[in-house]
């Protein structure tokens, strides 16, 4: 998956976020997407609203886990 596609995915996700929702549950929702799209496995510590706060946080996390982005 090239960088353009990664950025596209993150932008698309950002547009779908539910800002008023339960933060913990939104972190789970984001984690499901990250694991599926980037083929990574997050630790419990990563499934956290602070770690999955926005598109740039997601990008940083995916980069750390995959080491390629």
């Amino acid at each position, binding site marked *: *998956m090239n960088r353009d596609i990664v950025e596209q995915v993150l932008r*698309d996700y950002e547009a*779908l976020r539910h800002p008023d929702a339960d933060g913990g*549950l939104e972190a*789970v929702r984001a*984690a*499901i997407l990250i694991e*599926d799209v980037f083929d990574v496995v997050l630790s419990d510590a990563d499934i956290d609203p602070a770690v999955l706060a926005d598109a740039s946080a997601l990008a940083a996390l995916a980069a750390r886990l995959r080491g390629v982005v």
Partner: protein
Amino acid sequence: MCGVCGIVSFSGPPDLALLRRMTGRLGHRGPDGNGYYRDRHAALGHTRLAIIDTSGGAQPLCNEDSTVWVTFNGEIFNYVELAAELRRRGHTFRTASDTEVIVHAWEEWREECFSRFNGQWAIALWDRRAERLVLSRDRLGVRPLFFIRRPGGLLFASEVKSIFADPSVERAFDPAGLDQTFTYWSPVAPRTVFRGIEQLEPGHYAVFSRDGFRKAPYWRITFPERGREPVQDVRENAEALRERVIEAARLRFLRSDVPVGAYLSGGIDSSVIAAVVARYTAAPLRTFSLRFSDTEFDEGQYQKQMSAVLGTEHQDIVVGRSDIAAVFPEVIRHAETPIVRAAPAPLFLLSKLVRDFGYKVVVTGEGADEVLAGYDVFREARVRLFWSRDPGSAKRSRAAELLYPWMARSPGQVPAFARSFFGRHLDPADPALSHRPRWDSTSVIKNMLTGELREEMSRAGTEDVVTAMPPGSEDWDPLSRGQWLEMTTLLAGYVLASQGDRMLMANSVEGRFPFLDRDVVDLANALPARHKLFGLEEKYLLKRAFADLVPEEIIHRTKQPYRAPDAASFFADSSPAWFGEAMSERAVAEARVFEPSLVSGLLAKCRRTGGENMSNTDNMRILAVVSTQLTHESLIVGGGYGTLDRALPDPSVAVDLVNDDRSLRRLNLIS
């Protein structure tokens, strides 16, 4: 859309009177005409719902020298293009129908012709020189085709009741077919719920001759290896999907010589199709909707909104519980199988509304949920896969709370139950991870079966659909595996059958499904899974592709699957008159499927509650018992055909080469 039937007999001429009885039982599928062809070894019957070339196109129909005959149910939507190509190759056409394309295409391309067809069909071709019958069914099973093989012969028909017109055919439940029904919601082709009766698998053709019977696929449901999908760009794929859906909807709306209406459910799928028709065709559009007096199931607000946006002439029907109960015996006589939901009944009433307004064709949004990943079962699978990576994680277990937001008692409100239900059998290596919860919860029905039937099921052996998954499917995305299972089981066996073809044709209405177009399905199956189910956002690409045509409230509303009141339909008001007899201890014992004492207990529970707030399991149980009893009464005991037997008017095609070798000449088929 029509009814087809036929007899092949290598031991002597087929019985014409039997063929006419078989044809008569398909009168509801084709009230506009009928016909037959018979020679020394084959007889073909047809009832016609005239849609294309209404003045010509009567069937059975033959090629130039009357050596190949066809009886056909369905539509070949690309028949105009195929006819042009066949004319260039020297074929001569007598009609402007899609039916005639089939015989010439068969002559030209043999078995290869089926992969060239874009449509929905059940076809029987008889080549009288080769003494060979060819049966074919469309890719995903829109049109039904049943048959029974016997020594030196074969009977086939659009519906089982037509085959049962032959009194020598055994009428009995098939234990393995019932086992599948009470697991997957329907039998999986070639299995049916009747012993000895087979259905041709979708995407297959079969050949029957003196050499025997063989069948083969001309198309398979398949997906690319995860990560190797041809196009990864979401914008490019959205544009491609839009183009193909528009073309599929246009073909299905314009290729008809009678007016075409559209269903509007209030969801995105039918809204997209209706919007495309309204935007890209010049014809006025009439839309039809199903509403419920129970607000829990009603989507009238969204239907009205979409109709207003499109400016359609709109009709709806409001269905209550007693309406469902009143028509249920007729619904089962048409469905010809036990079902575990009452949902087909309101669709029977909807197609009646369509017919009452003089329409005999509707386009619908059927198929989008399977092809573009709209069902909750796919979201459920993704949640279960996520959770299975660390089943002990409290954070991961919370994912179950994201499921079924439309339910009154959603998992988010009862998280402990959600975790216990969705957390069972969390095996990431299971190819059916997506479907285990549904299959497990449905299989509970089998606890009510008689010991005798359970033993028969055990002897018949388990036919696990998972073992039939194609080689290489382990490299597909998990979503693709779930889609394969859904298309192979529920789509063909229930959605397109009990809820689709049978409920439409019961009222002589043809359904057309743009999302099941050959080119749409091929594109959809080649998409990256994330373009269909983006995280937990279902039908992501469809929403993106048509965001300009469908109001945002409909695009982004919480998906509500089509449902109807189940047990409450039979108990909330007074039970209908037929119910007591069909569910009596004597009738249940006679059918020998369910244990009478357990049925009595279930009925008592339903009566206490009025069928309200029953568990999902009990709702399925009651529907399974009621529909099984009615299937037994109407098809196995055989006394309940009622209105389905129609006296046939004079045939428009009557070719009998056994008793009247001048019949071809009278039809001007030979000089």
